[in-house]
């Protein structure tokens, strides 16, 4: 009898252990699914945010950068950016002193092309970041290809409750290790952003100006405030943004170097 009781007790214990493990597994799965679901939703929101800057897969954007230091305009630069799917960007510098200079970005590969030199120069991701308005600020128009998004708790900005999404770099060579995005709750319009460098330090924070062009709503201005150099603001203005595709040859660094009087149009 004792033996029967022992067997029953052991069976109960074992089954309860299995049941507990199964329950735990089910709970974990449910949590994962929930987390996955949240991530998917956050990533979808980022795609919506991206559509406010890049409405088509291949685009040409004319961008003006103004650097304001303590309220005084320090300099102004003009760029043309040609973007294609697959993280392909070609930035053509149009301002005096650097007219004809180009930066080619293919995935996490970067080249600098100087106007009076027929050779492409391979540069490191950190070299790309040298300078005040980093090339990444100008050339990157979509975050969903470069970052993984996770929803955070909603926050209140200027008395309005907004969604918050944390983006973490999933590829190498991006300008910022992570970005915190604040979005309008219904439309998921981008409102503000915080940019963090690899050390985890807040480097810049941004606000966006969205304008209805008649065809669609799009970001026409991004104001980047430097969190490290106080009083320094970079205004990124998108002067034109059109659906445009250039030949794949222009994304070959040797071809670009060859054609130093780039004539895309």
């Amino acid at each position, binding site marked *: 009898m004792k033996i029967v009781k022992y067997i029953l007790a052991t069976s109960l214990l074992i089954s309860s252990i299995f049941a507990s493990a199964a329950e735990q597994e089910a709970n974990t799965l449910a949590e994962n699914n929930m987390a996955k679901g949240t991530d998917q939703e956050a990533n979808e929101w980022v795609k919506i945010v991206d559509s406010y800057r890049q409405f088509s897969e291949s685009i040409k954007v004319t961008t*003006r950068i103004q*650097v304001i*230091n303590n309220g005084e305009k*320090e*300099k*102004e630069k*003009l760029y043309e950016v040609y973007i294609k799917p697959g993280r392909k960007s070609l930035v053509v510098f*149009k*301002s*005096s*002193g*650097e*007219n*004809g200079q180009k930066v080619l970005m*293919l*995935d*996490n*590969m970067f080249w600098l092309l100087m*106007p*009076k*030199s*027929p*050779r*492409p120069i*391979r*540069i*490191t*991701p*950190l*070299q790309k*970041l*040298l*300078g*005040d308005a980093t090339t990444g600020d100008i050339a990157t128009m979509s975050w969903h290809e470069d970052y993984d998004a996770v929803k955070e708790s909603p926050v209140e900005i200027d008395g309005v409750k907004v969604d918050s999404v944390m983006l973490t770099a999933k590829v*190498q*060579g991006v300008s910022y290790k992570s970005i915190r995005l604040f979005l309008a709750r219904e439309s998921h319009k981008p409102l503000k952003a915080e940019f963090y460098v690899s050390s985890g330090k807040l480097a810049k924070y941004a606000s966006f100006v969205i304008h209805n062009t008649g065809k669609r709503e799009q970001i026409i201005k991004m104001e980047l405030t430097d969190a490290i*150099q106080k009083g*320094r603001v970079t205004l990124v203005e998108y*002067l034109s943004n059109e659906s445009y595709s250039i030949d794949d*040859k222009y994304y*070959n*660094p*040797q*071809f670009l*170097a*060859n*054609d*130093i*009087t*780039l*004539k895309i149009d």
Partner: protein
Amino acid sequence: MNTKLKITVLSLVVAVTSTQTFNLQANELLTSGNLSYSYALQQEWYDYNNKSYVADLQKISAEKQSDTDTEILELIYGAEHIRATVTLKGRTNKNSSRDSNYDSDAIVKQLTYSNTVGTWDYTIGRKFTGFGFGAAFRPLDVIQNQDLLTFDRESQPGVDQLSLEKFSGLSNLGFYLLNPTQNKYQVGLKQRAILTRYSQSKENADWMTLFRITEQQKKQNVQFGIGGSFVVTEALELHSSLLVSSNYIKQEHSLDGQSSIIFAESNPWNKVEYTNGKTFMVGGNWTYSARNNIMFEYWHDDLALSKNQWRNHLNLMALQYGQLNSATADIRTIAEGNLAWSYQAFGHKQYAMQDNIFLRWSYQGNTLHPSATVLYSPNQSGSIFSALLNIDKYTVKFNTGVRIFSGPRDSVYGQLLRSGEYYVTAYGDF
């Protein structure tokens, strides 16, 4: 209209637009067609080295300039198939012992017709062609290695050629017929050659290989080169190149290595042929903070002066220099003439010795971009030091710098005619 006037009129047009704050509409108007232009105005000053054996020669003293003013206007035309670059350059040389004189030049540096046949691109005409990896010295830049010592902000002159190239993905295969109309005795930029090159870019590296055949002194020179640039980490890039030449030519003084005869009766420089020349370079680029960058390179070039060649030549110059105080006027005149010939050694390979170390530091400020470079000759303890400052605040950019040549008296850099160069440039591209 003479060239000086043309440059000045065009300069005025540039100056009027340049002094305005950057204006998109104005810029679009000026570049709406296929034409763009750049303009540079530059002032240079020089210090001379009184330790050089040639410092006091009458002939060379007459050529010493206290400073120069240079204006460079470059017009660049780019249409679908036609590319052209024309440089108008005017230079006023101010000489301490003579009146100022003005030289001007108009050069078509590039004029090409390009088109495609199937998947191939072809180009006919004069074109800039640059290959290779590195900053200070590029062994694979076999067609037109750039002059690193010039301050002038202008394009390099192109080379007449017929090229056929295929660009596919991130690779490039090219065939080049260079200077086809020149005779086989031409050297340098006008040297006749055939060349083929293949280059490819990968995730962490660019690499290329080339094969060139030229004719030198009735012999064929075959060159093979290979090189690459490797992105090692987010902050570090390394590059390296090797060029092997079946034979090569050096300018050598016929009296070098002798002690009994120190004077030549005619130009003593001869072209001497060597075989199996090697040129290699290793270097890198390290970005060590958000704004600081260091570049480093070491290279060896068989085509430059060897330690022994320089020592022999320096001994000859010292002996010739010793005769400048001779009591006989004829000997003094001969010594002067021979020293002037001896000085031609400095005209080759930008004064460099066979082994060189190059270091460059640069800082990317908000509006100020300072940099400093040192080219050091480890065999001689001689160096060229440069400090530059680029001001990026206005539509017109400013660039200023100083270059100091220093070294013991028995080094190449200690014997150069100039000991210092200073310059200020204002320029704009539109």
